């Protein structure tokens, strides 16, 4: 995502422009990494609302500290560190409060009741399966299989050796298959996900 053509500015270029207060550049950075930030936050918090809050706050923190980003071309990795730290802090605070979980659909859209039930059920099962994985494996499988990040990009941005990323990905997939495969509703899950 940081390599680009002349039409697509690099992360480094966007960071430099955002440092000067360029709203468009900052908006592009947010658009480029909002899904990844959310995925990483979700792997830590396991709750939609918390992941959303942590990801959004992380972008604002990143902007305030943008001058501390020593390698603007490696903005993504720097941002993911902020996301992880914010998410962990939030989980720590939440664990003190122990509020009841609010349905992920509470803030979004107006889907039909059947669809709400199906999606909520599916999300619940997926999150349960994901939660059985170590945090880093959740992040890797989400960033690779969902976000489409390459092994090299994940390694660079999560500050891990490339071999470790491959290994984590392998074990994460295997564990997810076991977790989801053991569920008699797996075929139904697949159908719903289509």
């Amino acid at each position, binding site marked *: 995502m940081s390599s680009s053509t002349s039409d697509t500015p690099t992360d480094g270029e966007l960071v430099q422009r955002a*440092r000067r*207060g360029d709203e468009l550049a900052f*908006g592009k950075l*947010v658009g480029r990494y*909002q899904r990844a930030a959310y995925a990483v936050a979700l792997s830590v918090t396991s709750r939609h609302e918390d992941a959303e809050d942590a990801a959004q706050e992380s972008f604002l923190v990143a902007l305030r500290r943008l001058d501390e980003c020593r390698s603007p071309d490696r903005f993504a990795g720097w941002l993911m560190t902020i996301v992880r730290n914010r998410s962990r802090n939030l989980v720590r605070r939440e664990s003190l409060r122990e509020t009841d979980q609010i349905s992920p659909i509470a803030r979004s859209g107006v889907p039909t009741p059947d669809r709400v039930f199906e*999606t909520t059920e599916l999300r619940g099962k997926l999150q349960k399966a*994901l939660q059985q994985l170590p945090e880093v494996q959740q992040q890797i499988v989400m960033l690779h299989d969902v*976000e489409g990040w390459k092994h090299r990009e994940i390694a660079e941005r999560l500050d891990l050796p490339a071999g470790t990323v491959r290994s984590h990905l392998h074990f994460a997939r295997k564990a*997810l298959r076991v977790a989801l495969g053991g569920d008699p509703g797996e075929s139904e899950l697949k159908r719903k996900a289509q």
Partner: protein
Amino acid sequence: MNGMKNGGIGGRDELGRDMELAGLLSALDPAQQDPNYWFRFRSWVVESAGPELARRRLMAELTVVDVMSSWARAVLPTAVLAAAFAGLLLVRGAGPAPAPIGVEEMLVSDVEGETIPAALDARGPGATVVFASEVF
């Protein structure tokens, strides 16, 4: 959540993604239920970042001259006031000049008992050599 491709169940795309898992995990994407989710997410972040972005724009527009002039604006009036106050103190403190003190008086001003000029007076001009040898 991003750029899902139509891969078969259990298949891999050109990036090596497991499309079966990707399909399942995409259910965690909030945009599945709300297509405008990511647009709103970004809008919220950019809007909330408005004051910080404005501050950064202001800082970027400032030149060295601007910085110096803003510094001067604050410092110059203070310096002028301080100089005026100092001048006032000098004027008010200026009274009649004290009477000049002779060197001999200064030398004996804190000496108790008979002063050197008195001793010199008593013995006359010829006693000067005696005085010097006693003192030094």
